[in-house]
């Protein structure tokens, strides 16, 4: 085959071009640290890289939400711990107040102390986060959630929960509203409340009260009256639904509940049983303070005092349970956040390492290839110089 002199040059130039193009590409890869410069380099890998970018952005978002929620729930947890301590202390004071050895002066002191705790509890309910927003106001977080009104404490927040996404299809509430915390308690033992008639003259007072079968309890009003050593239970239409001999400590059962009494009722004494009503914990405490400030003077009054005290103590204990429950869910959420944080951390590491595999240049490989290209380029240049030096004209001088 004939080779034209021009094609020798063309061939060398084409091949030098080819090497230099490859070298320029390698240089771009090495200097940017990235294997792919545009999607055209490897469309599938580029798409994978983009979706990993998206995934990493999502993980970062979730991580930010986790730490926001951790911070807010941490503050809530503090306020709840303090609240439950306060309620605990009030319970202890109530037990103290309920002993017969207290003098009227010491009862006044106890009542003042209770008042202090009451104020404290209110202030915990109005706790704020670092930015001046109220923790327990729901979404109404710029207005004071608990205010003291003439007829008790009002809740001014709402019940909207703010959910933060901490994973795909997974979110966590970053707060709890004050209504569910302090306002939804119920009077008595939560199912029914027992109160002594004001005219009672005996010393009978409730010893125990419990729900045996919630299905049988109908929420009606009942009266237990005593006469001649016997008791009688009547419903609101005065129908007798149970009766028997009164034995202190023995349970009186009707409509799925059981109450027992201690002490000796006078003839005609009666206790009424009714469904529990909504009663916020602040009302319970202020009732308690009111009770302690007015100690009984007579044995009959003492029985009345005891009856009310027992009811209020049950309410207080339910109130404490409510706070403890909420605190329990906060703890569970914080634990879930810890898990999420760990899992997001490892997801991030794995996404980043995959992204690095997809997109980052292997420097060792790229520099080796650059070296090879350099050697080839030098060889092409050398070959061209050699071929170019061969001309018949040189020998024809």
């Amino acid at each position, binding site marked *: 085959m004939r080779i034209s002199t021009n094609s020798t040059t063309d061939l060398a130039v084409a091949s030098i071009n080819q090497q230099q193009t490859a070298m320029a590409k390698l240089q771009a890869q090495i200097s940017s640290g990235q294997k792919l410069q*545009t999607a055209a380099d490897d*469309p*599938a890998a580029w798409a994978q890289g983009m979706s990993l970018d998206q995934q990493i952005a999502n993980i*970062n978002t979730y991580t930010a939400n986790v730490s926001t929620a951790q911070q807010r729930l941490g503050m809530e947890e503090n306020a709840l711990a303090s609240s439950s301590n306060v309620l605990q202390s009030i319970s202890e004071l109530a037990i103290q107040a309920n002993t017969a050895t207290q003098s009227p002066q010491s009862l006044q002191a106890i009542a003042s102390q209770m008042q202090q705790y009451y104020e404290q509890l209110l202030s915990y309910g109005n706790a704020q986060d670092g930015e001046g927003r109220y923790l327990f106001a729901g979404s109404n*977080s710029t207005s004071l959630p608990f205010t003291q009104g003439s007829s008790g404490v009002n*809740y001014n927040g709402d*019940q*909207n929960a703010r959910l933060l996404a901490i994973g795909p299809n997974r979110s966590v509430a970053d707060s709890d509203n004050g209504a569910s915390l302090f306002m939804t308690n119920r009077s008595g033992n939560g199912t029914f409340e027992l109160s002594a008639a004001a005219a009672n003259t005996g010393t009978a007072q409730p010893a125990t009260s419990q729900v045996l079968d919630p299905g049988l309890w109908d929420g009606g009003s009942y009266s237990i009256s005593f006469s001649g050593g016997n008791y009688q239970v009547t419903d609101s239409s005065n129908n007798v639904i149970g009766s028997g001999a009164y034995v202190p400590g023995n349970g009186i059962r009707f409509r799925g509940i059981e109450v027992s009494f201690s002490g000796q009722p006078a003839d005609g004494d009666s206790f009424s049983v009714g469904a529990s009503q909504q009663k916020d914990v602040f009302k319970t405490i202020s009732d308690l303070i009111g009770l302690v400030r007015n100690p009984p003077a007579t044995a009959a009054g003492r029985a009345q005092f005891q009856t009310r005290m027992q009811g209020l103590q049950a309410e207080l204990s339910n109130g404490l349970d409510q706070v403890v429950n909420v605190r329990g869910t906060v703890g569970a959420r914080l634990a879930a956040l810890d898990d999420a944080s760990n899992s997001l951390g490892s997801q991030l590491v794995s996404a980043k390492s995959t992204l690095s595999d997809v997109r980052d240049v292997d420097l060792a490989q790229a520099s080796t290839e650059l070296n090879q290209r350099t050697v080839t380029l030098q060889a092409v240049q050398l070959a061209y110089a050699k071929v170019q030096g061969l001309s018949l004209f040189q020998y024809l001088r």
Partner: protein
Amino acid sequence: MSDMMTTGVSALQAFRQALNTVSSNISNSSTPGYSRETTALQTTPSGGVLVQQTNRMTDAILFQRSLGDNASYSRLDTFQQLASQIDGLTSGSTTGLGGPLQNFFTALNGLASDPQSTANRQAVLAAANGLSDQFGSLQSQMSGMESNINDQLTQAVSQINQAASSIADLNNRIALSNGGPQAPNALLDQRDALVKQLASNIGITTVKQDDGSINIFTAGGQALVLGSNTQKLSLVPGDYGTGRQEVAIGDKAINVNSQISGGVVGGLLDARSQLLDPAETALGTLAVTLTQAVNQQNAQGVDQNGAMGANIFAPISGSALPSSRNAGSAGVSVGFADVGQLTNASYRLNYDGSSWHLTDVSSGAAVPMTGAGTAASPFVAAGISLQISGAASAGDSYLVKPTAYAAAQVQVTTQDPAKIAAALPISVSSGLGNTGSTSVAVNAIGNAADPDLRSPVTILFSSPSTYSINGSGSYAYSAGQAISLNGWSITPAGAPAAGDSFQVGPMSANSGDNGNAVLLAGLSSKGVLNGGNTSLSAANTAMVSQIGSIAQLASARSDAAQAIQQQTQKDSDAVSGVNLDEEAADLVRYQQAYQAAAQVISTAQNLFQTLLSAARGT
């Protein structure tokens, strides 16, 4: 002896000419388009030598092959350059949409974590502005490419016309010397070079005529050169006012755009249909979907002032371009009825005098429409709605490219950070004395436009299975069921007991509720395109990788075409190219022959002298 003299002189002349040819070869060894020449020698009857012809060494088959190779390489290379431009644009970390999209949704998520923070609200607006800028800049880059293509077409067409008239001129001169003793080699070389250039520009077929001239046709069959006559190409504006120049031919400028397929012109036209159209449509679809989804979601919440959310982005309208031949004055406005149904197709809307018809431009298939084309009942098809105003004449047509120019319309309409509706429009609560169900959640705002959406409502359960609304009515209920009214839907947790109540009321201003912000942020991964199967970020990824694939393929095909072209070039160089070593040998050969011929003459002269002196001597 006189014979010897005659043959000697003929040899001197012949070798002199052969040496001329060799020197011409040497001096043109680097001239592009030059074909190597050889001297064909012939014996004369008297035993002398005669230059029969100076032959031009070419191969007609290789020449034809190089025409095809040039046309396809130029076409693919032109396309590849534009493809890599768009690829760089959409993939670039600073020019692509990926970053701004991510920023926007990250900002929305920040808003969800603290909806009362003005800084977070500002961040959302800033990210929305960034997104709108990026859409605008991508669209303007693509429009820039459109005008770039127009410019390149103008240039290519003027080169084609110049080459065609030069070829016609050369045809004329070549025909004049046709039948002469010596072929016009230089003219043929010039013409071949021009024909190759023409092939690179548009892709041609050639037909050789008996008189030595060649006729040239485009690949679509339009004559560019017929003997010494030419038909000029020109550019005319496209029929539908797209701003695109189209190729026309002849004095009457007949539009032949659809029949052009090769060379630079073919590559430019390919880039329009295979690159810019899909890219602009995909970008526009993203723009329309994003703005509509964000606006719709924002309208489902309340802003910081306690008002229902207004548009964050300006609503986008689609494009319907009237034909320049339309006689009527009807206007067509294009809306988006269902972005999930949008396709990448373009449509033609025709009026036949009594009714309107929609056809898919690429497939030609009829697309059924519902509705009447009025404002109250627009035509609806393939996710778009068409509204006709004014009077159309029979035969009027419109080119409907639903999202092609949408990206330029992405604008943030509000700069007031309070206008972002982060909160749900309603606030729900359960009665404090509830014993069965103590909390209630909003499932969804089904119809934010309901006039009673935010009216206060109290739902009271008179028994676990019946409830009343605002004290009236009695509705059956079973635990876990949703209660829907006034455009909202809520579900009480657990099983409500008798006496349980739930309240729904308007969300207050400056609320810390993030219900709608969460939904706004969730648009990032929500399936909103393609029938609800593709999210915005997935659609962007698909667009980028699709353009990347086109660019990758274009580059591979252009490399392959280049290799083929180079191979053909090498093959034809092997026939037509000058090898200096060969010429050096020829130089020596003819020089020696010339010297020998001179010696013959000298010998003849000696012989003659010998004879003369012999005669003188006798």
